[in-house]
């Protein structure tokens, strides 16, 4: 089963293009994500890494191109059917985006809202026992079970990001997109979160894509790397192929200026 999964990409992005006004930020971006692997997106600021992720997530609308999840093109869907079709994709943010006044457990439960019916989901008071147990298991998976009833606002950055990953698990995500998940964290917390993302791919068979700013994190925790330069894919292959020359080219001053 697993071998089969890895042959067929769970998410396939084809010929993605996007411009803001006259400025073209993505040209013809193609890639696919497979279960059981971590893909690192590398590139300088403005290279188009975050825009790519946002297009996949529907936070930005691409000018052209396709986003296929399990072979189904999400671009052709809209409204409720798109919301439902997108459910297996979860996102983790640089700014974490938990609700600080709610407990870690309540925040994790909120990941399941997409599959709860309207009336049963207006307040955390109505989160059922089964959902709470599932959320608790997710917190256990990320090592935050002992802080379940702590307000999210009282957690440290690294703890909060792990709770956000638990929220994605409670969403029953198959694809996890992480937009600079560790950029705001101190080095130790960043390592913990990267280890967690790596383990979720390799032990829970998730497809993980993470925008990273540090190539050395990619080398240690990712399986594949996609390097973007001025909105085009400059490199796509195993992280071992990230040579010094390539890294310099991706982050060169010229690339930033262009």
């Amino acid at each position, binding site marked *: 089963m697993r071998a089969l999964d890895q042959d067929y990409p769970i998410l396939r992005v084809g010929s993605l293009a996007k411009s803001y006004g006259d400025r073209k930020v993505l040209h013809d971006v193609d890639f696919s994500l497979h279960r059981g692997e971590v893909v690192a997106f590398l590139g300088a600021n403005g290279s188009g890494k975050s825009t790519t992720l946002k297009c996949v997530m529907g936070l930005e609308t691409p000018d052209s191109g396709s986003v296929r999840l399990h072979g189904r093109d999400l671009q052709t869907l809209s409204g409720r059917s798109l919301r439902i079709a997108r459910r297996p994709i979860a996102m983790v943010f640089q700014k*974490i985006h938990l609700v600080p006044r709610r407990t870690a457990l309540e925040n994790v439960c909120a990941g399941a809202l997409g599959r709860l019916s309207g009336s049963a*989901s207006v307040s955390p008071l109505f989160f059922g026992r089964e959902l709470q147990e599932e959320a608790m298991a997710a917190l256990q998976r990320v090592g935050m079970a002992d802080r379940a009833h702590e307000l999210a606002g009282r957690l440290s950055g690294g703890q909060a990001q792990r709770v956000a990953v638990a929220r994605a698990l409670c969403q029953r995500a198959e694809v996890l997109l992480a937009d600079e998940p560790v950029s705001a964290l101190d080095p130790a917390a960043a390592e913990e979160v990267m280890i967690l993302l790596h383990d979720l791919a390799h032990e829970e068979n998730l497809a993980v894509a993470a925008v990273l700013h540090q190539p050395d994190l990619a080398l240690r925790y990712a399986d594949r790397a996609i390097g973007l330069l001025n909105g085009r894919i400059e490199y796509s292959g195993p992280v071992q192929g990230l040579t010094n020359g390539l890294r310099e080219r991706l982050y060169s001053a010229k690339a930033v200026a262009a």
Partner: protein
Amino acid sequence: MSQQTFEIRRSHVPPRPRAVSRWTTAGISIAVLVTLHVVALRDTGFRISELIAGAEGMGAFLSDAFPADFDWDTVLAPALAATATTLWIGLLGTTLSIPAALLLAVLGSRTTSGNKVVYQLARALLSFFRAVPDVVFALIFVTAVGLGPFAGVLALICHNTGVMGKLWAEALEESDQGPQQALGTAGATRLQQVMHASLPMVTGSFVGLLLYRFDVNVRSSLVLGLVGAGGIGLLINQSIKSFQFDAMVTQILVVLVLIILVDQLSAFIRKRVAV
């Protein structure tokens, strides 16, 4: 141990660009403000000399007013009872406007309202309730339910819905949209996003604004008493009309105590709610 010598370095300060035009704009602003004040002073008949000439009248008024009349049966007890009524008008006017204000705030905030037409409609409703003064609402309701506190409560509900709804809508728009967006990407509907992200993000500011409005409404209900909506305002009005200025002073002192207590209470609660 050794004497250290510091080399003080200085660098040329480049001239600020367009420094001249800054002086010009300042001069024009001052000229405009002065002109506006001259017009306003003339139009309102603001003349200190008139105030000094009429000081005698004020003296007569004050000598009538003091010493204050603290007679329990005729002044103090009725004043306390009426002040309680004023407080209840302010309380109900605030709390009973919560449902409508909350609904209009969510619909009238660009970040939570899903529909442009609904947004504009909610904004227009809020503007209407805010634009009509509570005294006018009171006069309207007096014709419907007669003189008394009930008309005052209804008037405050209407006006406060407009003001509080607007303040809440602005708090929603200024809050961090991140968590709402995060739940949106997780497949939550707009209603779910509002209930689980937008509203929990603004609970603190909502409670703060609610207490502020309670404070204002208690003072407004005093004025509403003057137009027949009951409470201590009515008694003060009666005292003035029957030239019992010594009783009026007592009534104003009771009001002062109420205002201080409400202020302290809301400050206390706000401190507890703030996270």
